[in-house]
C-alpha cells in the first residue's frame, strides 16, 4: 500500500478525517437514543416546537437516521447524501437550540441521549462547527481511494 500524492492533497485528507469524526459522533448519538426512545420523546417535547403526534415518530426516526448516516459515512456508500443530511440536521439542531435559548428554557439537550447536559450557547457553537464540518465533507471529500493506492507503482 502506498500513500499517493501525500502530503499534497491536504484538503481531501482533512475532509476524510472530518467524515470519520462525524460518523463517530452520529453513531454514538444514535445508539444512545435508540436505547432510550421514551426519554428522547420527553426531550423533544421539552423543546416545545413539535405537536404531540410528531414527537414519538421523531424520537424513533431520528436516531436511526443518525446511525444510517454514520454507517454511510464510514462505508462510503451514499456518502454525499449522508454529508448533505448531516449538514441539514446540524442546521436544524442549531436553529432549534437558538429558539429555545432565546426563550430562556433550561432543558436537557438530548443531543447524546437523555443524560446530556442542559442547553447552552456552547452547544450552539458545537452544532455550527459540526455543520461546517459536514459542508466541508460534502464539498471536498474524495474518499479513501484518492489518498491510498493498493498497487505499488514502479518508478
Amino acid at each position: 500500500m502506498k500513500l499517493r500524492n501525500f502530503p499534497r492533497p491536504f484538503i481531501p485528507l482533512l475532509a476524510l478525517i472530518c467524515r470519520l469524526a462525524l460518523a463517530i459522533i452520529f453513531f454514538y448519538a444514535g445508539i444512545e437514543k435508540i436505547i432510550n426512545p421514551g426519554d428522547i420523546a420527553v426531550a423533544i417535547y421539552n423543546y416545545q416546537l413539535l405537536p404531540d403526534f410528531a414527537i414519538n415518530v421523531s424520537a424513533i426516526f431520528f436516531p436511526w437516521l443518525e446511525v444510517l448516516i454514520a454507517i454511510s459515512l464510514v462505508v462510503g456508500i451514499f456518502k454525499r447524501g449522508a454529508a448533505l443530511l448531516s449538514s441539514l440536521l446540524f442546521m436544524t439542531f442549531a436553529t432549534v437550540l437558538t429558539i429555545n435559548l432565546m426563550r430562556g428554557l433550561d432543558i436537557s439537550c438530548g443531543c447524546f441521549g437523555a443524560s446530556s447536559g442542559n442547553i447552552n450557547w456552547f452547544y450552539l457553537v458545537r452544532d455550527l462547527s459540526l455543520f461546517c464540518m459536514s459542508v466541508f465533507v460534502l464539498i471536498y471529500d474524495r474518499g479513501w481511494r484518492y489518498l491510498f493506492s493498493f498497487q505499488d507503482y514502479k518508478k
Partner: protein
Amino acid sequence: MTPNNLSQKLYPAFREGIIILAVALFIAIIFTLLRFNNMPLFGFSSAALVKEQQAKILSITLSEAYDLYAKNKVIFIDARDPFSFEEGHIASAINIYPEDASLHASSLKIKADQGFIFVTYCDGPQCPLSKETAYALIQRGITTVKVLVNGWSIWLKAGYPVSKGKK
C-alpha cells in the same frame, strides 16, 4: 469550485439523501412494529406528561410558608390573573401568570442565587395555575419552587399580611 461543479455534486447528494431518509423511516417503522421498544409511533400525550411532572413539584404548608415569610427568605408568586392580584394578594408577592414565566426568569434566578425560596399560589384546592407557574419556572432553571395549595384562601383566613394594588 465552480457553481456547475457544485450542482453536479449536490444533485446526487439529494438523491442519496432521500434514499437514506427512506431506509431510516423503514427501519424505524419495522423496529416499532416488532415492538423492540415499548413506544407507539403516535400517541404521545403532553397533557399526561405535564401532569406527571407537575405532580413531582413539592408543596409547602401554610405554617412553613409563614415561617419563611417572617424570616424574609421567601418570595411569593401569585399565579392568578392580574385583576385578582390587584384586588388582593399576599404582601410583597409578585404576579406571574404561567405564560409570563419567561419574562421573570432571569431576575428570579438572581434571587434564587441569593438563597430565596419561591412559593407559588392561586385560589382554590383544584386551581392549576400555581402548579403551572411553578412548572414553567422549573423549566427555566429555577429549582427552589414550592406550591402553597389553595394559598390565597388559607393565607387570608389565617389573617396574615396582605396588600392591594399592582404591587
